[in-house]
């Protein structure tokens, strides 16, 4: 393991730090608690128009004609927009641009955007939308991924190089998995299925655009990727990027659901340009379900080989990924579905063959734990089966196969800090595993699982050599420090994180740091809030910028006091002469001295990942500067009469490197775990046989309420990463993964059934119990 503390060898956390590691207020919490915080739909501009969308009623159809004349004639309507006015294709991954703001020639799912209207109010816009006449030529819809795999025609996307319905195929092999089968003491081979589910941020998508009198377009949008939206808007609207400003107001949750450029962002921008008026579009909850980009449904086949003492010798996976109608992040999803499984256990041999297909359903994308939650479920259940078969304790088998720290995975990913064993220890102890696992009455069980996740990757989406994260700091004569960051605070607290790190580094209080974020006119570029990259990358950039500034300030004070800069220390806003602790000055006085010496004060900092990844095509996808590790133990109660699973309690320990603010880290661990639990027992994003969403509302698509959520006990393991900001790693996505298999494994402990198809609805439980009974009778 790395040194426990690189900021003073052997020093425990909390001793050398004045801000980091302590409970702190969030910079924006009071604004949120009082209703003062401005979210996108809270923006009201003078003369603002409201826009509504016309959506496809067909899963797959060619647009023959669109007649907008009646809509245009409706009093109060200012503009009607159709696809041919915005024909340039886009997509968050530059290699797969297959979306248009509005359908140009075809619609590809029920809910696909066809036309839009801007009017004096929403009611008028909606009335006008209903007057638009569209003639469709209906095409065969492909809804089943197995069918998509073998059905090249009709191609859902017709103008790609390959004329079929395969979105992406990745086949990578490390070592020789097949050679292990003959030697193995145990071979487990099973099929697993993960149904689709969706983010359900409580804030629906919303965007407001205004064309300024200076000819510059401003877009306020509920997005987690301001920079990519900026690039996409400029390209699709054919504007010089310097004429476009994208601002992310306060954001009401995202979880990956706001990390693509979305139709409404282009539409309000174009409508603002057409009408000369500000235009807002707020999607209804129903529309958010169509926008989706949620968890991909996956059909997964896994074969694990192991020795008699439980050492894994090979893992072979074949995955079929249902992508829905567009590419979105699909290229990355396909890689992640295999690349991120190679820890926290050592795989000597590994192969995965992943295929993402197009179907006529709402497009899937990145949901918290992008691409790796589904395989993690399958593998951790399979590993439990291996342990069960060999009679090894499920925690013990995970310990035996531990990958280690400062090592390399079979697929060439560099591992630095790794606190997985401590995570296992923590949940084992907290849950009373040794006394209780396998020993509780029928119907009650404990299950364990582990996982790992990235802290950002070195793949910057569009190839460039510029920093992945940038920070600018301005120092004011009042004593205030303003930090400018392109980072997107989506509720995870990244603005607070930036304030803590700058305050720690400068020796001032977080309340004296103001953070200006996610405004492309004002802030240096950050690539966005995805892949759990913000704390690691923006945090390192913030420390870089603040450290340069601290040097200027301490040198100026040292010169004034005629002492050495090393003798000048700033702590909580007071500058102290270490040789003469009675000699002090305020941060404000120090800033004045520094400004006299260095002219106007300011500083920049940036971060770029080192070169990482395996030396093969796709080897850098999933290559992260640091990986987080998690262990979960779940306790469930299974009612054999009703088939209902109740997740009573989940113990989770997460290796977050250093907990920069433990309160926020605990919130990320708990929120992830809760979301995972919902995916097991409640949530399913499904279409009927016509491709129609089964229930696009929060009543029908059930997420856990305060009554459904398990009792969650979070623990933090601080492995102190050598490259993380003060040793920190990610905490926002990793702790979702192993929740799901831990619950699945607990169900096995409770009633002896192996459920391999999510979600675990009561009907599946009852069926498995019924199938189990005759088998037991035969054995008896």
């Amino acid at each position, binding site marked *: 393991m790395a040194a426990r503390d690189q900021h003073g060898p052997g020093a425990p956390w909390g001793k050398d730090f004045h801000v980091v590691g302590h409970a702190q207020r969030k910079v924006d919490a009071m604004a949120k608690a009082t209703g003062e915080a401005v979210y996108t739909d809270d923006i009201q501009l003078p003369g603002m128009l409201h826009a509504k969308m016309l959506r496809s009623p067909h899963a797959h159809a060619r647009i023959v004609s669109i007649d907008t004349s009646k809509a245009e004639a409706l009093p109060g309507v200012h503009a009607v927009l159709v696809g041919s006015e915005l024909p340039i294709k886009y997509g968050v991954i530059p290699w797969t641009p297959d979306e248009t703001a509005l359908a140009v020639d075809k619609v590809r799912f029920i809910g696909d955007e066809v036309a839009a209207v801007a009017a004096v109010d929403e009611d008028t816009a909606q009335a006008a939308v209903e007057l638009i006449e569209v003639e469709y030529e209906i095409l065969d819809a492909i809804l089943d991924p197995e069918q998509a795999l073998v059905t090249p025609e009709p191609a859902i996307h017709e103008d790609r190089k390959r004329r079929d319905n395969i979105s992406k195929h990745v086949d990578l092999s490390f070592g020789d998995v097949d050679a292990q089968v003959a030697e193995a003491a145990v071979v487990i081979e099973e099929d697993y299925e993960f149904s689709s589910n969706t983010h359900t941020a409580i804030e629906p998508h919303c965007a407001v655009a205004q064309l300024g009198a200076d000819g510059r377009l401003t877009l306020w949008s509920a997005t987690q990727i301001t920079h990519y939206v900026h690039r996409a808007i400029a390209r699709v609207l054919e504007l010089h990027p310097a004429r476009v400003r994208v601002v992310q107001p306060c954001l009401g949750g995202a979880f990956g659901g706001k990390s693509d450029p979305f139709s409404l962002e282009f539409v309000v921008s174009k409508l603002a340009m057409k009408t000369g008026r500000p235009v807002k579009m707020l999607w209804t909850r129903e529309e958010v379900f169509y926008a989706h980009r949620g968890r991909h449904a996956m059909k997964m086949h896994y074969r694990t080989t192991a020795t008699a003492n439980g050492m894994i010798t090979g893992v072979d996976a074949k995955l079929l990924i249902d992508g829905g109608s567009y590419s979105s992040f699909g290229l990355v999803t396909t890689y992640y579905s295999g690349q991120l499984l190679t820890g926290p256990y050592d795989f000597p041999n590994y192969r995965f063959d992943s295929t993402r297909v197009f179907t006529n359903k709402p497009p899937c994308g990145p949901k918290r734990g992008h691409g790796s939650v589904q395989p993690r479920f399958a593998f951790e259940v399979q590993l439990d089966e291996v342990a069960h078969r060999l009679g090894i304790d499920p925690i013990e088998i995970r310990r035996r196969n531990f990958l280690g720290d400062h090592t390399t995975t079979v697929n060439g990913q560099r591992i630095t800090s790794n606190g997985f064993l401590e995570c296992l220890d923590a949940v084992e102890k907290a849950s009373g595993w040794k006394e209780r696992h396998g020993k509780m009455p029928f119907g009650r069980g404990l299950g364990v699982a582990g996982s790992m996740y990235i802290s950002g990757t070195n793949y910057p989406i569009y190839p460039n050599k510029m920093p992945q994260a940038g920070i600018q700091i301005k120092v004011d004569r009042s004593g205030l420090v303003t930090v400018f960051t392109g980072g997107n605070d989506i509720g995870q607290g990244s603005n607070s994180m930036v304030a803590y790190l700058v305050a720690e580094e400068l020796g001032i209080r977080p309340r004296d740091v103001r953070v200006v974020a996610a405004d492309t006119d004002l802030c240096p570029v950050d690539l966005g809030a995805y892949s759990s990259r913000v704390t690691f990358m923006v945090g390192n950039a913030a420390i870089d910028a603040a450290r340069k500034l601290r040097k200027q300030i301490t040198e100026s004070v040292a010169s004034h006091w005629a002492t050495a800069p090393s003798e000048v220390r700033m702590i909580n806003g007071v500058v102290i002469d270490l040789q003469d602790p009675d000699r002090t000055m305020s941060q404000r006085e120090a800033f004045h001295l520094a400004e006299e010496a260095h002219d106007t004060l300011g500083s920049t900092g940036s971060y770029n990942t080192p070169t990482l990844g395996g030396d093969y095509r796709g080897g850098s996808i999933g290559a992260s500067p640091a990986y987080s590790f998690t262990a979960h133990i779940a306790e469930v109660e299974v009612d054999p009469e009703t088939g209902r699973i109740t997740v009573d309690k989940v113990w989770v320990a997460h290796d977050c490197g250093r907990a920069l603010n433990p309160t926020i880290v605990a*919130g990320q661990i708990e929120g992830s775990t809760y979301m995972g639990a919902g995916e097991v027992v409640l949530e399913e994003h499904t279409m009927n046989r016509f491709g129609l969403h089964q229930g696009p509302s929060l009543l029908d698509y059930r997420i856990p309420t305060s009554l459904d959520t398990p009792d969650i006990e979070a623990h*933090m393991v601080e492995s102190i990463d050598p490259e993380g900001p003060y040793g920190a790693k990610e905490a926002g996505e990793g702790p979702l993964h192993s929740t799901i298999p831990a619950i699945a494994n607990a169900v096995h402990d409770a009633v002896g059934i192996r459920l391999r198809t999510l979600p675990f609805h009561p009907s599946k439980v009852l069926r498995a119990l019924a199938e189990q009974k005759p088998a037991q009778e035969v054995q008896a």
Partner: protein
Amino acid sequence: MRVFRLQVNGDPLDVAAPEHWSLLEVLRYRLGLTGSKQGCDKGDCGACTVLIDGTPTLACLALPATLEGKDITTIEGLRPLHQKAGGQGVDPVQDAFDRCGALQCGFCQPGMILSTKALLSDNPDPSRREIQDALAGNLCRCTGYTQIFQAVELVADEVAGREPRKPAWAQAREQEIAAASPKEEPFQPEHGGQA
């Protein structure tokens, strides 16, 4: 269009709006009280919760015409009410939500905080189960509710003059700090946001 006479956060207001508009639309788009949020517009999420004569009510399903003569409290009204009653800073519920980390994206929290206010005014020392029941109409997607429950319990503990309950991770950290430097006082976060 119709003129509604409403009592919002203590202010008597005449507001003109289309007859079919919900209270939520009137609050947000006529009165500029955007603290009440729209998450679903059909009574499923609870983000629009306001207090009507002290009872948590979904503003997206409430028609303004039925509310004349009633006392409507939105999230914007909490701090002024607290200060009017002689309190400092924000309402203790708002403060506890911040101290416990219950405010992540913040979108559901105006409704959650108002539901909590109503709970604690009826039942100042609720059990965990009573808290879960009282907040079951307010969906939160960020927190998993844990830190929200802790915030409600923190207010109850402080009102009762008890030592506040602490989550397992916080107890573990305090023990570790105490072991490392026994003389150090437990850290108390400072009050208030930005300077």
